[in-house]
């Protein structure tokens, strides 16, 4: 694990066919901190976060330039399954498997070869506890994951991501499908999780980025519609005294 950050991109560009979606992004994601990626629609926020665990590989016409390092190692020289174990992901809409609450969380560890029942039970309990869901589901672990509310399902998805002991958790708009109370629970949970994990969150909601993150990356498209990193820094600085005028225009709602 590198001292400066568990994850970094160096002059990283991403293409979908001929279209350049990200242009020469260099950013160092600080360890045990929450980093928010903000920017207007189409600026490449999701493309960037999906790059960290090679989700863009699923797009047949995608290609990359530059480097992304996780634990100091190029992500393309790592086994993708191993990479995704280290770099977990939570999506915009809760997407539990059509299985029990227990089986959802046990799924990852089972795939990674854990068969021992008591060990699995311990992992499931710890992961659900870490996701601040235990008290709400401890008596219903055998129930379908779909019996939970949206906010609970999202925390279950977080527990599922935690169960394989990742180093980084990527969250792509994790609260945008949730009501304000469930959103707040996710935000408080993130604050607790950063003690153990490095978190990267993509959010449309600037106020959410301001509330929860320690660092913020602001992306904006250039004249070719490619996403560029305009500014990266401590969130407090970004929201009180941004360096770039374009950042100030965006966060103060004077954009477009």
């Amino acid at each position, binding site marked *: 694990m590198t001292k400066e950050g568990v994850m970094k991109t160096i002059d990283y560009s991403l293409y979908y066919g001929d279209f350049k979606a990200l242009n020469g992004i260099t950013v160092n994601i600080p360890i045990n901190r929450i980093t928010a990626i903000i920017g207007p629609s189409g600026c490449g926020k999701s493309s960037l976060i999906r790059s960290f665990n090679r989700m863009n590989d699923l797009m047949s016409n995608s290609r990359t330039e530059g480097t992304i390092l996780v634990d100091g190692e190029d992500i393309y020289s790592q086994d993708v399954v191993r990479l995704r174990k280290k770099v977990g992901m939570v999506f915009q809409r809760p997407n539990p498997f059509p299985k029990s609450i227990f089986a959802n969380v046990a799924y990852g560890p089972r795939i990674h070869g854990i068969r021992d029942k008591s060990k699995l039970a311990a992992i499931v309990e710890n992961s659900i506890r870490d996701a601040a869901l235990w008290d709400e589901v401890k008596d219903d672990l055998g129930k379908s994951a779909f019996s939970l509310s949206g906010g609970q399902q999202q925390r279950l998805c977080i527990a599922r991501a935690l169960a394989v002991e990742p180093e980084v958790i990527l969250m792509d708009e994790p609260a945008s499908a949730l009501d304000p*109370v469930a959103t*707040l629970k996710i935000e*408080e949970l993130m*604050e607790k999780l950063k003690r153990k994990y490095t978190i990267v969150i993509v959010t449309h909601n600037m*106020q959410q980025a*301001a*509330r929860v993150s320690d660092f913020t990356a602001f992306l904006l498209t250039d004249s070719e519609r490619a996403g560029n990193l305009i500014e990266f820094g401590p*969130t*407090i600085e970004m*929201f*009180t005294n941004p360096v770039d005028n374009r950042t100030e225009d965006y966060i103060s709602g004077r954009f477009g």
Partner: protein
Amino acid sequence: MVRETYEAEMNSLREELLRLSRMAEDALDKSVKILKDRLFVEGDELILNDEKINLQCHDIEEHCLNIIATQQPVAGDLRFLFATMQIAMELERIADYAKGIAVINNKIPPGSHIQPLVDIPRMQRKAKEMLELSIDSFLNRDIAIAERLPAMDVEIDMLYEQVFRKLVTHVMQNPDSIADAMLLTFAAHNLERVGDRVVNICERVVYLCTGEVVDMS
């Protein structure tokens, strides 16, 4: 619904403000002791220490701004932050008055005593009591205490008039001591201003509790 991180930030801000008020109170206590006992080394220390108080005030302002920029406070919380910034400034100015008294002490030659100081320490004790109560009333959102304090300021004003009258009488009888007497009047005036600043704090307590901007002076 509890926002733990946000609550922790607000609580730490309360503690920072309390720390600043203790620093200002301490400076005030020391300044009058310095003038009363003619302590020059301690006076220079107090003058130097003022920079720490200024920095504490700036830290509070910055903390308030950061919370406003990142946590979207509204209603009572927003009023609290706005009032905290203003109270921090009042406390910083109160500490400046204390520093001013130490500067005055340096200007009065050693051994030059017009008369033993009685009313000036009395003003300081009254001002200190008011200051403590005003900060308590702010942190506990206790408007009743804040509304009581302007009456105490009137007592400080009366003490100031008394100091002024006594010094005028003294100067009339001892024209050579006019410079020292004027300097002592300035010192008393500084304490009189502390009382006014505390009344400003009380106005912020009313604003915090009711949202009303009032003039209590």
